Each structure stands twice: as C-alpha cells, then as structure tokens.
C-alpha cells in the first residue's frame, strides 16, 4: 500500500488538485456545466497529444523540441489535403498524416543515433526544418477539415445504461483522447519495448549491458512521439477546421505538463496519466482566469508565468534529487 502511494502519490495529489480546481470553477461560475466541460475537453485535446509526445521521449531520457513544429506540419498537411476533397478522402488523409508523424519522428531518432549529436540540438534543427516545411505546405492559415472529422469531437457519446444527465458529461473529445492514448500506451507499457524505453531513460549504460537494443529503442520512442504529435496536429485541424503553419505554444506547455505530471526530466520515471491530468489542470486554470473576466492577454502572461514556474520547480527537484556536487 505504501509503495502504491509512493508511486502514485504524485498523480493522486494532482488529481485532487484537478477536483479542487473544478470546485473553484463551479464557485466562480455556478452555471459551469456539461457543455463547458465539453469545450474544455476539446481545448485540451491538442495539448494532451503534445504532452503525450513529449512524455514518451522524456521517459526515454531525451527531449523533443520539435513537438510543436511537428504538430504544425501535420496540421497543415491534413488541412490542405482535405481542402476541397470529398468526405471519404479524409479516410485516407488520417492514416497518411499519422504515418508521416511516425516517419518524421523516427527520423529524429535516427539522426540522434547516427550523428551522435545530442537530442536537444537535433530536435532544435528539426524544429527549424519542420517549421519551414509547414510554411511550404501552407503559407498562411487555411485549408479545411472533413465534416465527419469535425463532428467527431463535438457533442457527447451516448453510453448505454447511463442517464442523460450523466451522458452529457462524456464529451466525444475526451473519449477520443482516452481511446487514442490507451490504444498506443497500454500495450506499450506492458510490452518488452515499453520496459526498454524506461530502461534507457533510467540508465543507458546499464540498459545496454543488460542487452537492451538502445539505438532501436530510442528511434522507436521518437517515432511514437512523432505519432502522438501527428495526432495532436490532426486534432488541431479538426477542432479549428483549418491548418496554421505557425506552431502554437505547445512546446513549452508540453514540457511544463510533463514536469507537473511527475515525469522526471532526467528520464526513466513517471507515466502518461500524470502529464495528462496536468494538462487538464493547466487548461482549467486558464478557464478560471477567463471566467474571472481577466484580459485574455493578461491570461497568457499568467499562464506563461505558471508554466515557467513549474519548469523551474521541476528543475529544482531534479537538482536536489541528484547526489551533491554532481553536474546535472
């Protein structure tokens, strides 16, 4: 029991914080209901996928700075492919864009392994490249999304056996998020590969000596990150109906949520649940600020301050947890 608490204590605390924030929201805005929760879930969607992308790589002991740019590229690709195309064509676009994310993510990993340049530099260079590619695909915000895709995040999922009032609290966007993450994450977590990802993040040398294929595992981790980023890009296109070539603030948000979610920036620790709850916490704070009728620009400042503070706190914890005198 104590072991469970130690392992899951952070996530449990975070969940309590989320509940507390919901209560605060309800106090600020007594009318806060299922519809608002639905829009919260829609707003969380791209952030959650960005965070999932970052989490996989951070657990493997790396960092991916190209997450936001990857989302921009996949988003504009999807939007420009679906522009003027038939509804059925989108059935082809979705797997294509996901495969693109997977391949580009794997490219990140291959470049890191082959050039032996640190991940932070490789993904920074990839950030430039992907941003440029996004601009080449679509010079200005535009494109379109298929109607059925747009409909897939709006409204609620009718769950058999649940009364209507409870049904209203199950937005499609949330279900989509949970399903997508579970399909990839749960089999991974239980497989040898998932163990390898944790192993190389925890101690690369030890993992190598125990026979973990370090290079292959790293490439796969980055490929998965690319896949999640592509899901994020798709969800951006779906929820806005267009694609924008300039990346949003997803890089900093993803790092902040990873830190807040209890995943150590050194690697090897944490899971996916914590960061996802952290995203909800960060978005809900934003909602509360908006409900308090604070100027949206000021909200952006406060949000930025919170994210920077969280990242600082995470770095501080990491520093403390290392033996004294060691270089971080």
């Amino acid at each position, binding site marked *: 029991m104590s072991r469970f608490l130690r392992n899951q204590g952070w996530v449990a605390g975070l969940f309590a914080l989320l509940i507390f924030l919901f209560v605060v929201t309800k106090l600020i805005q007594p009318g806060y209901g299922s519809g608002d929760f639905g829009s919260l879930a829609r707003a969380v969607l791209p952030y959650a996928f960005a965070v999932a992308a970052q989490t996989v790589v951070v657990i493997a002991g790396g*960092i991916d*700075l190209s997450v936001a740019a990857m989302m921009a590229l996949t988003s504009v690709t999807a939007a420009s492919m679906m522009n003027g195309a038939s509804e059925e064509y989108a059935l082809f676009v979705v797997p294509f864009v996901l495969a693109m994310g997977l391949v580009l993510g794997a490219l990140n990993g291959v*470049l890191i392994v082959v*050039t*032996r*340049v*640190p991940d*932070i*530099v*490789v993904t*920074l*260079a*990839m*950030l*430039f*490249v992907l*941003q*440029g*590619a*996004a*601009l*080449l*695909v679509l*010079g200005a915000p535009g494109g379109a999304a298929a109607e059925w895709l747009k409909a897939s995040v709006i409204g609620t999922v009718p769950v058999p056996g649940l009364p209507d009032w409870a049904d209203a609290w199950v937005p499609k966007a949330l279900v989509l998020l949970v399903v997508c993450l579970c399909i990839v994450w749960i089999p991974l977590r239980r497989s040898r590969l998932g163990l390898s990802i944790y192993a190389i993040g925890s101690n690369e040398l030890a993992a190598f000596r125990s026979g973990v294929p370090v290079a292959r595992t790293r490439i796969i981790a980055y490929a998965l990150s690319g896949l999640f980023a592509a899901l994020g890009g798709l969800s951006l296109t779906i929820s806005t109906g267009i694609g924008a*070539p300039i990346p949003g*603030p997803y*890089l*900093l948000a993803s*790092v902040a949520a990873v830190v807040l979610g209890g995943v150590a*920036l050194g690697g090897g620790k944490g899971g996916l649940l914590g960061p996802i709850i952290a995203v909800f916490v960060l978005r809900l704070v934003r909602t509360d600020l908006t409900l308090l009728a604070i*100027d949206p*620009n*000021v909200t*952006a*400042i406060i949000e*930025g*301050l919170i*994210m*920077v503070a969280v*990242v*600082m*706190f995470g*770095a*501080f914890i*990491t*520093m403390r947890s290392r033996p004294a*005198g*060691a*270089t*971080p």
Partner: protein
Amino acid sequence: MTDIATMPRPVSFARRLKRFMADRPLIPLIILLFILVVILQILRPGIVNERWLANTAKFAIPLAILAGCQTMTMLTGGIDLSVGTVATMSAFIMATQIVNQDPAVAFLLAMLPAVLIGLVNGIGVGVFRVHPLIMTLGTSLIGTGFLQVYQRTVIASGAKIPDFLNWLGTGVTYGFPNALLLFVPVAVLIVFMLNRTGFGRLLYAVGDNERAARLSGVRYWQVITALYILSSLLAGITGLLYIGLIKAPSLSLAEPLVLPSVAAAVIGGTSIFGGRGGYTGTIIGALILTVLTTLLTILQMPEGGRRILFGCIVLFVTAAYLRIVEDR
C-alpha cells in the same frame, strides 16, 4: 602496440584537412563567404558593388549582434531564444514612448524589459538549473504577452521612429553604413571580453567543464546571471538599431532573426555544447547567412525553404564539428 605507433603512417588528405579546419576555422569560413559572393556575382552580374556591400553590412549587423548573444550563451553550453522578443520589446517601447517622453527616458524604459528578462533568464538557468532553451523560450512567451497588453495602452498615442535611430539604422556615410559606429565598438568589446578578461575566461571555463569550474571556486549562478543580463541588453540595443533599419514597429519585428542568429553562431564555429568558439567566427557566420539569404531571394526560394536550409546547416555543422573534436 609500440610498433604500430612508430610506423610511419601517411596522413591522409582528408585527415589533414580536418585538422586544418579544427585549428583555423576562420579560413574555410572566409573562403565559403567568398565563394557565395562569387556565385552571386555570376547569377546577377554587376550586383556586387559599393551599394550592395553597404546594404549587406546593414542587414548583417543586427544579425551579428544577436548572434553575439548566442555565441556568449553557447560558450557556457546555453542558448538564448528570448533575444527576438527582447529586441522587439525594446524597439516597440522606444518607438511608442518617444512620442511623449524625453529620448533618454524612452531609452531607459526600452531597456527595462531587456534587463528584467535577462535577470529572470539568468536566475532560472543559474540558480534553478532549468535548461536554457526552455527557460528563454518561456520568458519570450511571457514577454510577448506583456507586449500585447502594452500595445493596447499606447494605441492612441501612435508610434514614430526617432531620427537618430533612423540615421543609425539606414544612414550611409562615405560608403560606410552608420550602423558600424555601433557595431565596431560592440564587436571589439565582445572579442576583448571573451579573450582578455576574467569574465570571458569564466564563460569558457563554465562551458568546458562546469564541475571543474565550480570546484575551482567559480560562482556559477553569478556568472550565468551576468551573462544572460548582458545578452538581453545587447538584444535590446539590437532592437533599437533594427527598428531604425526596418522602420515599421510591429509585435514580431525581430522574431525572424532568432533562428538565423543561432545558425550564424553555429556556422562561426561556436560549439553548442559550450567551451569552444569565438565571436570573430560568428561575425563571418552572420555575413555568410546574409549573403546566403540574398542568394536564396534571387533564386526565389520561399521562406519555408530557407528555414529548412538553416535547420540542415545547424545539424550538419554541429555533427561535423563533433567528428573533428572526436578525431583529435
């Protein structure tokens, strides 16, 4: 073992070339710059004249100063991505405050955010040990937020470019751009500081081996804080120069210079991992990028293509330098 070592072994040309490039990185850079100018002259005969030289210098100078910020921070193993926002902020504040304020007061107001952002960066990186990339990205996000709020307050008063900045940014005297009056002292100062002063030595020491530097009594956080404040101040001054050149205050004025400034420092031979490099190479790197941009404009390469190219340059050059260092 010994007979292998003493055996006369012909040194291959590639190896000698590598060693030559490692010892004197400036010469290949100058050759590259020269080749680019020749290509330009071939593509557009007659373009290389006195006016073109002055123009190239004018556009290379802001880039070179910002690349100086990157050079200094990279020497400690860091990077400063907030320079674009800082430059934009000081330029925008200067242009709006000059309307009602005394020039000296406007200048001080314009430099205030630069100092603040530098201070926060320095504390985040030096004390809390946040990765510089994440930290400076975060402060630049916050800075942009503040700028948006600030913009609302000055919408009524309008903006104007002070005559002095106009003269400094665009003016040409006897074929030499006036901006050189600012750049030459700044460049001399940076080169002198890096090579001849204790602070400069500390930057190299911290970047080369942080632990050793710390054990020899270097106060890491003080060095880093001073460095990031200096970097921000330089960025702020660049903003003032740049507004005189571009003449249109906007909220994204200097953002397009951020990626090239990183690329210029990397091309100039400064290692992104710290401890190696210098400002002279960076200046040539900035010139190379400016000429390259002209070349790409003539070849009608779109902005996206340019970014892809810059990303590839950063990755390729870093990987190449890594090989050279490993070889020695």
